[in-house]
């Protein structure tokens, strides 16, 4: 009974604390759910035993696939084609720089430094390093949204942050899928093992074929209740298929969402449903993450600090580099990358997905890095985003495209 009381009090205390922080310090976080998970899990009160957590695996696998579908739903082609190419260029450069910097440094440390069970081989170290790089690349939309809300306006800078967060998600999902395809555990019953490329194609096909079939399945359905059941079934099936073949559910979910947003007649309704369920599933995922978290040994502390530090450098430096290379420093300022420091749910989803994978190397380390980064950056990401947006002029002007050589001639 004491344990239960502890759990309830712990949850309520965390909830109060987060509410207070959200009101007074512009902090957005799901920390109370992580705390609840910690309290319920084997490292807390033990109310959720490892077997029970294993039984809950379908729930958080579903949460991962659902998150993928929500991300894919952000890529609506009619709006994408109207978005200035510069915004995408900036986003891609910032994202790739962050991923490359963090992934490369982590690979170097894991392959060369005595971390965890000992230095890994360069090939083995590539998997956790890529996943850490992908986690580093992700950034939360929440900062941009709160900044826009707090300032009472949406300008090009806010738009840039939104595009950057979406591209960060796309890069991260692709990187995780490629990494898991490259390190796929042999199936053992086929005449020939599929290659990494074939695993990627199969993973993509699940999302594309699934998306197309669900588009047909949904037809002209308008009832939110029935639409929800159909969409839920679609996401569960796609997620289950990806999980079954040992691939990440994020990419098929992403493609499913992408097809649905671009083909469905009920785009708004489906989008609304995906968004509404995304949040409860995210919290469920946080509870599970808290319960599953098994802190790594103290000797990975250095790597954790390197991860956090380099991610900050990557985000700020990558964004600066991108803006400078594209002549957009005046438009977005030298430190617009600070607004992308917040991590959000995708980082937790990737870490959870990876830790459930059979191919996972050092899953606890990856998991700890993601949790630490999410908890830490959620504390100040909204404030940073607000400050960045506030420092820019009301009307951000796009840089003039440089005249081509032919035109000059």
């Amino acid at each position, binding site marked *: 009974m004491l344990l*239960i009381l502890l759990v*309830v009090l712990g949850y*309520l205390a965390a*909830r*109060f604390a987060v*509410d207070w922080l959200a009101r007074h310090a512009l902090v957005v976080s799901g920390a109370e759910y992580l705390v609840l998970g910690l309290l319920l899990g084997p490292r807390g009160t033990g*109310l*959720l035993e490892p077997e*029970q957590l294993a*039984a*809950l695996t*379908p729930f958080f*696998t*579903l949460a991962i696939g659902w998150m993928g579908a*929500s991300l894919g*739903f*952000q890529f*609506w082609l009619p*709006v994408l084609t109207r*978005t200035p190419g510069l915004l995408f260029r900036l986003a891609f450069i910032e994202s790739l720089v962050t991923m490359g910097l963090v992934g490369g440094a982590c690979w170097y440390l894991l392959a060369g430094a005595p971390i965890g069970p000992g230095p890994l081989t360069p090939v083995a170290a590539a998997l956790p390093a890529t996943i850490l790089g992908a986690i580093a690349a992700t950034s939360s*939309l929440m900062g*941009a*949204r709160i900044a826009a809300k707090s300032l009472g306006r949406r300008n*090009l800078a806010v*738009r840039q942050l*939104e*595009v950057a*967060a979406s591209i960060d998600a796309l890069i991260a999902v692709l990187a995780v899928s490629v990494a898991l395809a490259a390190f796929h555990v042999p*199936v053992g019953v086929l005449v020939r093992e*599929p290659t990494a490329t074939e695993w990627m194609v*199969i993973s993509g096909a699940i999302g594309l074929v699934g998306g197309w079939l669900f588009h*047909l*399945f949904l037809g002209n359905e308008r*009832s*939110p209740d*029935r639409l*929800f*059941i159909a969409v*839920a*079934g679609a*996401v*569960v*099936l796609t*997620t*289950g*298929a990806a*999980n*079954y*073949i040992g691939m990440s559910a994020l990419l098929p979910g992403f493609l499913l969402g992408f097809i649905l*947003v671009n083909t469905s007649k009920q785009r708004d309704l489906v*989008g609304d449903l995906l*968004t*509404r*369920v*995304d*949040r*409860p599933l995210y919290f*469920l995922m946080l*509870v599970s993450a808290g319960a599953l978290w098994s802190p790594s040994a103290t000797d990975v502390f250095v790597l954790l600090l390197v991860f956090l530090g380099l991610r900050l450098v990557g985000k700020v430096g990558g964004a600066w580099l991108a803006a400078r290379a594209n002549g957009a420093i005046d438009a977005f300022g030298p430190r617009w990358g600070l607004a992308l420091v917040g991590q959000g749910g995708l980082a937790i989803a990737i870490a959870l997905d990876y830790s459930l994978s*059979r191919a996972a190397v050092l899953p606890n380390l990856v998991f700890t890095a993601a949790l630490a980064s999410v908890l830490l950056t959620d504390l100040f990401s909204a404030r940073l985003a607000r400050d960045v947006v506030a420092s820019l002029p009301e009307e951000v002007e796009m840089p003039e495209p440089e005249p081509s050589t032919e035109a000059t001639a």
Partner: protein
Amino acid sequence: MRRLVVLALLFGAMRLIEPLGRTRGAPDALLTFGFLILAAYAAGELVARFRQPKIIGYLIAGVLAGPTVLGTVTAAAALRLSPVSDLAIALIAFLAGAELDLEEVKARGKQLVRLTVIELGLGILTLFGLALALKQWIPFLAGTDMQRTILFALLFALIAVMHSPAIVMAILTETRAKGPAARATLAVVLLSEVVVVLLFSLLLGAAQRLLPGASEPSGGVLLVIWEIAGSVPIGVVLGIAVAFALRVVRDDRFVFALLAALLGQQISHLLHVEVLLTLLVAGFVAVNLAREDDGDALRHSMERAAGPVFVVFFALAGVAIDVPAAVALGIVVVPIVIGRLIALRVGVHFGARGLGLEPAQQAALWQGLSAQAGVAIGLVGIVAEAYPEAAVSMRALLLAIIAVNGTLGPILFRRGLVGAGEIGGGMSGESAAAEPGAADDATTPVAEGMPG
């Protein structure tokens, strides 16, 4: 038709990727579960065209996809999905408790208790008599001495008389019926749940004194009684906690209810109390004790999310139905089902007098009580611990009876509610899937219009 073709294509696609994951241990649960949801949804829509409750479609889809027919959902996959089913039933119990209004319980409590006692008493007597009369065709009674026959027949009657809160809640949510018959049915179903389980515990305790079995049900008779009696205070404590927490939780109420149900489930397992009863009480206390707005908001959040929960629960319940076994026991099942229906009709006729229900409302009430679902099987599990030799055939017979009543009951109940004029606006059950507060967090950045 289009949906059936898509389902067939999906089925083919599932078969296509099957070899790619064979070395993994029963991981296909989520995959087949997704297919099951879509199949159940399509079947639900199909039967709704014939003016039948959707849960019939969900059950049929579950039966067809289950291990005894098509085998799409294997027994191992069904086992892996049991936490999903358990959570769904915990949520249904929490919602059912939340639907009970304290004022109504106060106003009509005595009459409802009287009705429950009469309909249950008559039902138990009828089923007991039928079990004795059909003794030679019932494996766990055939060839046993008088004492064993009487005790096993009584245990069987107590379990077979049970109603289904889940089916009643599903029909009420789907039809949005809120009239006197609907409310009385829900109250009696919940009340009878408590009474039957309590009687069952007492009878099993007595049976073990007279007929020592292979082993005592884990912990002995006192623990069985504790399972029931302990559920009430624990449910009250959980309900109070939820009611107070609702003052803080302004949004994400559905996820909060989900967590409360999950927590209630875990606490119940930990303290060895009945999950359903604990959550029923918790839901009742939480909504009636919370500030009015908070209680209503919680109830509405759960109602909106109930549709998908029912699809999941009944589709998985269908998977558990063993069709060949049910057909094989037909000779016993048919008279028992008919006898139970007659007993219910007569019991409600005499028991409902003080409630002031019209004949059509009384008809809806007994038809609502006719439904049965898998909850009764939980009690057979307790019997199995003490008398494993009898439990196997008792479980098979009860599953067969539940299969028939689970299909017949929703059809009858809906028909009864139509007859009583308590269904308005058809069978739409339009419900959004989740929390209204979450709408503020729409995440479609790239899809949003460009500034300016």
